[in-house]
């Protein structure tokens, strides 16, 4: 008899719920939010999510101090010319006024009218200072060149809203690099999963018949699976190396590739290098999953089919394959999803190269986020991947009928 869950027993679930909420659900929702903003960590005006504009007091104070400092410096330089000196003192007074007005602004969100006021005053002061230097040319000024740059920095104290809505998603359609990455990912996934499935099924059938050596095969099969992908990718990049790699050398000797350099230095070579490494690492794993499925098939079925005179091929297609279908679907589904989000292997083996020929969606998303520090568009790519994953899973579960919910 299964009982109803009471409050005390609900406590058993609490740690799981908290961990899932904080480290899985919250990040997904946050990534989703990022995708609606032009969010770039290395750009001071876009490094925060904001619907209305924001004001950076720090940015303002640092640069407005320089305006005053530079002006008073050059006022000293203009000391000989009474008119010029007076004009500089006036500008300096304006600058003091300007600083006083806006040092009252709080850091953070500001209203549209405040934003406008700030932009206009900054522009007015900038023009005044520019005019000043034009009216009284003097070689001794030290800061004529730097002041315009300071004003540029001052303008950055105001960040306009970086909410962009769906325009990040619209960018997808014009992004050839994204479609190339999608193409590479699909190519990698289809070919490596297909090879892994066929080899894995063959291996599982052999292991199912094998009487001796099963422990040895099982251990041998588990080792590539248990090695960190990053380590095995690095190991293989040595074996594929153009001048010193033994596998590239063997392939070239066998005539599979034109010369040993093609393996990592050409696009197709590098893609196949990644596929072969993946096949090496996960075929045994696939075989073990399929073997477990084979072992639960009733042996009596084979005996009765033998009595009925079915040959091996008939037995395989009429009994083994249909009964193995649930295991096959689940194994292929999880392998497909794994291959689709491949990151470590590509990042370490080829880094997406040569010339982007092996760049998958994960690698592109990671580069966008952590090389260009563009979290906004990076999140759009990640969301795009998420949708692809959902489509793949739905296809397997609804269309092909994979049964992934085993318990209950």
């Amino acid at each position, binding site marked *: 008899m299964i009982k109803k869950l009471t409050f*005390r027993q609900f406590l058993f679930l609490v740690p*799981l719920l908290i961990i899932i909420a904080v480290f*899985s659900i919250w990040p997904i929702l946050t*990534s989703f939010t990022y995708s609606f903003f032009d969010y770039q960590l290395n750009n001071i005006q876009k490094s925060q999510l904001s619907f209305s504009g924001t004001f950076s007091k720090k940015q303002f104070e640092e640069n407005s101090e320089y305006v005053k400092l530079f002006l008073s410096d050059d006022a000293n330089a203009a000391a000989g010319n009474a008119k010029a000196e007076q004009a500089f003192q006036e500008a300096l007074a304006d600058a003091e006024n300007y600083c006083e007005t806006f040092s009252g602004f709080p850091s953070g969100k500001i209203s549209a009218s405040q934003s406008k006021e700030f932009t206009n005053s900054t522009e007015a002061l900038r023009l005044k200072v520019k005019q000043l230097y034009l009216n009284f040319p003097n070689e001794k000024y030290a800061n004529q060149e730097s002041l315009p740059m300071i004003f540029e920095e001052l303008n950055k104290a105001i960040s306009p809203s970086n909410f962009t809505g769906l325009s990040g998603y619209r960018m997808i359609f014009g992004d050839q690099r994204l479609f190339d990455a999608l193409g590479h990912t699909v190519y990698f996934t289809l070919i490596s999963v297909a090879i892994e499935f066929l080899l894995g099924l063959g291996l599982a059938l052999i292991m199912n018949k094998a009487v001796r050596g099963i422990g040895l095969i099982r251990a041998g099969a588990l080792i590539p699976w248990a090695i*960190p992908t990053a380590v095995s990718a*690095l190991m293989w990049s040595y074996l594929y190396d153009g001048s010193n790699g033994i596998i590239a050398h063997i392939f070239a000797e066998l005539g599979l590739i034109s010369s040993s350099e093609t393996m990592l230095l050409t696009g197709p070579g590098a893609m196949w290098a990644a596929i072969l490494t993946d096949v090496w690492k996960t075929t045994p794993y696939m075989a073990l999953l399929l073997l477990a499925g084979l072992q*639960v098939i009733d042996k009596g079925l084979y005996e009765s089919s033998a009595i009925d005179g079915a040959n091996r091929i008939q037995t395989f297609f009429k009994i083994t394959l249909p009964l193995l279908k*649930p295991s096959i679907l689940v194994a292929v589904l*999880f392998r497909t999803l794994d291959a689709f989000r491949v990151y470590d292997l590509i990042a370490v083996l080829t880094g997406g190269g040569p010339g982007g020929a092996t760049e998958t969606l994960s690698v592109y998303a990671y580069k966008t986020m*952590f090389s260009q520090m563009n979290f906004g568009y990076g999140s759009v790519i990640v969301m795009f991947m998420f949708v692809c994953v959902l489509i793949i899973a739905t296809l397997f579960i609804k269309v092909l009928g994979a049964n992934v919910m085993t318990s209950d």
Partner: protein
Amino acid sequence: MVTAVFLVVILFPFFWILITSFKPSNEIFGSGAFQLLSQAPTLNNYSSIFNGKNILSSIKNSLMISLITTLYVIVVSTLAAYAISRFHFRFKNFLLGLILVISMFPQMIIVGPIFNLFTLLHWTNSYFIVLPYSTITIPMAVWIMVAHFGHIPLSIEESAKIDGADPFLILWKIVFPLAAPGVFTTAIVTFIAAWNEYLLTATLNTEIPMQTVPVAISFLRTQFSILWGEVSAATVVVTIPTIIIVLLFQKRIVSGLVSGAVKE
């Protein structure tokens, strides 16, 4: 025969790495690169990775991080799986579906927000990294544990309940010992998953003293040259513990991997 071919294909890369690790660099590069046995075997590659390449500290980090992850994941998933397999509640199927979705989504989706969170809390380059590891380990662990609890007959617990024991005591004294093989399987699979993690560590623990093995080894490849001798030696060093674990616990690992994947 097929067995032999299979083992040769699987093990050849390791074998080649092993012999490379004993070669001096003039035999790794150039004409001697394809020789089976070294003319002048050397231990230099090993001594250089143990002196100053931080392989030892990365092994320590990997061990600590994987152990902590395994411990808390076991506790959390055992408690949850017990409640899931023994009691009825309305959002049970939703919860199981959610766990399934988490195991399916691209890991890349959590990296950005987690990076910002860790930067904000100053948790980068620390062992706090074990917390987001939950995303890759918890779904699998809950899944295996639910499958194992499903095999333990309810009658034993019911007689304990008649004797008046409370649910936590029943879990601790009666169910947990019976589920021990399942717990052990979950622990190994979780440990290996944590040991192999690359994406989060490469992003969050970038400082050399806090790197884990996969990241530290991938850093041996410098911008200008790849020290294949040292890479090989480091690979051998970090692979040996994995091979030992696999040889000792292969049956448990396989049963963990296939539970959930095979309907019985």
